[in-house]
């Protein structure tokens, strides 16, 4: 039984493999399916890294076009999705670099900060704290909070916790070691927690939307 299952597992093909094969055979509609399947995630990742709507739109378009052009280079050792994410991350970092002319921007930037390595705000949060805000207020708080993180932390948190990539996939996508991903993820989570405490901790006064540190 175990043997049968393992053979079935080995033969099980990710649905993207068939789509990629169809694209290679000249079927553009198969690429259409891949675009529809992943465009939201790619746009979200590009927004997380660039923090700029216009750049995210360009990244999304360029990442898919590049993937189409380079499909022959896709080996199938990794999932199509993680391969695509890697292209989108590189495009995003390039745009971020252009916006900050003269400043080097990489996923190694600002990661030496000690902020968040030791929790300071230890007040407990209100139960279901997000209920105290409207959807748009909450989205604004979440955007503003993640925007304050160094790009190298933001991207690790976005891939690992928001998009659900594994630690190994995140490391492979970013060209980082597994310990580096783990260390950044811990500090990203703790920094976000610390910053969100401002809005979500139990308090008696009025809600503090828009209040800066």
């Amino acid at each position, binding site marked *: 039984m175990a043997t049968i299952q393992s053979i079935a597992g080995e033969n099980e093909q990710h649905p993207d493999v068939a789509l990629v094969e169809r694209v290679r055979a000249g079927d553009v509609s198969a690429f259409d399916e891949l*675009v529809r399947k992943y465009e*939201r995630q790619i746009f*979200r990742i590009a927004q997380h890294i660039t923090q700029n709507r216009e750049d995210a739109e360009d990244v999304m378009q360029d990442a898919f076009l590049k993937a189409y052009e380079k499909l022959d280079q896709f080996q199938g050792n990794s999932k199509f999705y993680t391969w695509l994410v890697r292209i989108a991350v590189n495009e995003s970092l390039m745009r971020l670099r252009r916006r900050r002319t003269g400043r080097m921007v990489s996923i190694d930037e600002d990661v030496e900060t000690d902020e968040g390595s030791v929790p300071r705000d230890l007040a407990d949060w209100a139960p279901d704290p997000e209920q105290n805000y409207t959807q748009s207020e909450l*989205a604004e708080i979440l955007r503003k909070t993640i925007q304050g993180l160094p790009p190298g932390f933001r991207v690790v948190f976005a891939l690992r916790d928001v998009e659900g990539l594994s630690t190994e996939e995140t490391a492979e996508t970013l060209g980082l070691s597994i310990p580096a991903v783990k260390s950044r993820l811990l500090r990203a989570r703790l920094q976000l927690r610390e910053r969100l405490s401002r809005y979500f901790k139990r308090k008696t006064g009025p809600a503090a939307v828009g209040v800066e540190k």
Partner: protein
Amino acid sequence: MTCSEFLAMLDDMIDNEVSANMRADLEEHLRCCEHCEVTLNTTRKTIQIYRSHEIYEMPASLRERLHKAIMAKCKKGC
């Protein structure tokens, strides 16, 4: 277990990547350390909030526009 030792294992605990023995040690620390309990719960909540709220949603119109642009270029052979 000290708070620093607990903190070093925080992610593994959240991601369920600890052995049964380690989990027992971590839980024992939590029973007597309110600060670490708050840190653990609020960090879990942080992840859950980011996971469950779409903060960068693409409007359908934008999606269609970009999609058409991509497909038009691909059909031309990029």
